[in-house]
């Protein structure tokens, strides 16, 4: 079986293909377009997905579990228990971390306020971010100048502030912010640091999606509690846990829900938001595009396959004599079948290669025109190739079977 017959078949097929270049090109057109459509489509949606992944990573990572306040009273008057409930507090963050402190790589709390902010240069009504714990790191901020909040600043509700680039521009247009005083409400605070500018454009030329992040005016959350929106219970707006391990995330969020519910007098006044799980879910909704691309690939392969069968049947007429001669010389039907299949599969293989090249070119053009970096998953290559091979095989079967079942005598006499 492997005495070179296979090699000989491939060689013959190659000669046959080269000698009938136009016909071969037409035959493989369906495969070329199908593979190009599948690969192109997949790589475009992969590129978009990769880009949005980058966005979330730049936002501070996907490995976060956010806990937010949630209204427990939906309608009517609240019950006594609901009224007495304390809501989300700093204590929740502390107790949460204690559940599994080795897997929790960071905790932050947030307590926002709105206040009048004044500097020698500007006087504005602005949002104030009260930050606690590892807030800057967990939200993806880097200090440009000066320093971040120390534990001491937070514990003592120190009157200090950190500004984003836009806030620096507005309140200290001369660029020297660190060490100067800003009045927030009636409280003078000293600027101890400035943050690096954050930029993310989903597509080239689009607006900066992180523009509003540069507007940040951060002070310790304890200071917000004490001087602006506070209460004795140290309520906060958001608690964030950073947990890189997926397994730990699952068990942790269950345990956390239990602890919080117990802390909150059995009231579901909080909401857990597993950022990674949410994004993965959003991405899987994007799978519909993959299905559309796959379908268009399927259709072009089917269309091309039908054309291919037609051409094969037409050329079979020209080749009946050749088949007859081979049979007379002693080729059994199976051998003829294999020869035809080899030719078809070789054609499919070469066609898919061309399709892959075209598909890559196609996705390069599209991604470049919408301004997203190209990302091609190697799996897409394999998938497009396999798909082409399956279709190539199925559509080659009919002509090959027909040829192999010719009667040698009739084939020889065919004019």
């Amino acid at each position, binding site marked *: *079986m492997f*005495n*070179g*017959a296979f*090699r*000989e078949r491939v060689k*013959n097929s190659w*000669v*046959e293909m080269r*000698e009938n270049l136009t016909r071969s090109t037409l035959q493989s057109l369906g495969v070329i377009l199908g593979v190009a459509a599948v690969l192109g489509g997949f790589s475009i949606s992969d590129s978009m997905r990769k880009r949005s992944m980058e966005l979330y990573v730049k936002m501070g990572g996907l490995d976060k579990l956010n806990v937010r306040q949630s209204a427990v009273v939906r309608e009517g008057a609240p019950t006594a228990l609901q009224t007495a409930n304390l809501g989300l507090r700093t204590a929740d963050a502390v107790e949460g971390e204690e559940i599994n402190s080795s897997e929790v790589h960071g905790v932050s709390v947030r307590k926002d306020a709105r206040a009048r902010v004044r500097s020698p240069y500007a006087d504005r009504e602005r949002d104030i971010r009260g930050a606690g714990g590892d807030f800057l790191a967990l939200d993806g901020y880097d200090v440009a100048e000066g320093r971040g909040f120390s534990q001491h600043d937070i514990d003592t509700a120190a009157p200090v502030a950190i500004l984003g680039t836009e806030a620096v521009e507005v309140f200290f247009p001369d660029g020297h912010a660190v060490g100067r005083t800003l009045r927030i409400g009636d409280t003078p605070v000293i600027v101890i640091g400035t943050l690096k500018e954050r930029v993310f454009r989903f597509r080239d030329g689009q607006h900066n999606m992180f523009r509003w992040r540069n507007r940040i005016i951060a002070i310790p959350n304890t200071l917000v509690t004490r001087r602006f929106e506070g209460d004795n219970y140290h309520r906060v707006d958001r608690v964030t846990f950073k947990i890189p391990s997926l397994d730990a995330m699952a068990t942790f969020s269950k345990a956390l829900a239990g602890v919080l519910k117990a802390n909150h007098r059995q009231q579901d006044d909080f909401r857990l938001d597993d950022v990674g799980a949410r994004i993965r879910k959003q991405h899987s909704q994007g799978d519909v595009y993959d299905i559309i691309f796959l379908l268009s690939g399927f259709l072009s392969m089917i269309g091309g396959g039908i054309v291919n069968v037609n051409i094969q049947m037409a050329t079979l007429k020209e080749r009946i*004599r*050749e088949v*007859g*001669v*081979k*049979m*007379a*010389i*002693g*080729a*059994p*039907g*199976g*051998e003829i079948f294999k020869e035809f299949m080899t030719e078809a599969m070789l054609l499919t293989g070469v066609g898919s290669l061309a399709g892959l090249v075209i598909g890559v070119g196609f996705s390069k053009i599209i991604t470049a025109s919408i301004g997203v970096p190209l990302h091609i998953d190697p799996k897409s290559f394999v998938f497009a190739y396999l798909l082409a091979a399956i279709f190539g095989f199925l559509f080659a079967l009919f002509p090959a079977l027909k040829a192999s079942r010719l*009667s*040698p*005598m009739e084939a*020889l006499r065919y004019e």
Partner: protein
Amino acid sequence: MTPIIETQSLTKVFGSNGAAVHALRGIDLTVERGEFVALIGPSGSGKSTLMAILGCLDKPTAGTYALDGERVEGLSGRELAGIRNDKIGFVFQQYNLLPKASVARNVELPLLYAGVPRKERRARALELLEMVGIPEKAKVLPAALSGGQRQRVAIARSLANRPALLLADEPTGALDQKTGHEVLELFVDLNRRGNTIIIVTHDLSIAAMAQRQVEIMDGLIKIEEAA
């Protein structure tokens, strides 16, 4: 010794009841090893049908056929292909070479189907081309050859598997007289070396070169005469 060919009341009917054509109506033919037989007869006599059955390209409707001592009338298509490959060498009027394969590869083809390794195939092909007198043409395509040379390639191909029987269907039909004669000389020479040859022709001068003429008429053997 068993004869190469032994048929008994071989019949072949094409079509069915109403429009049946009886191409062969009971052929009893025996060809001994080493014979050179000419099958003659006008067109429509059934000689091509007989040739197809003798060549295992077609199956008889009824009757028995033993080739080299083996009954073949009931074999499957695949088995017949094996027999054609192993025991029969065909030479056609139109040469029937593969136009896209080199001369050497054309000659190798039966060896390929027999499963002979590549090196052996190559060696055997060159040996055969030597035997038919055109060793220098091994690498060219058939289109570059003259009719006579092409027929020599076809003969070399037919001999590749050392067949028990050589079947030639009007082998000189497409050649001019001189070349045709040279090709016939080659057949005579091959016969002298022990090959059993059946040549189908309507040309009596060609038939005269054979040891025995068998004339077919209306699906029956009309005359058998030894030269």
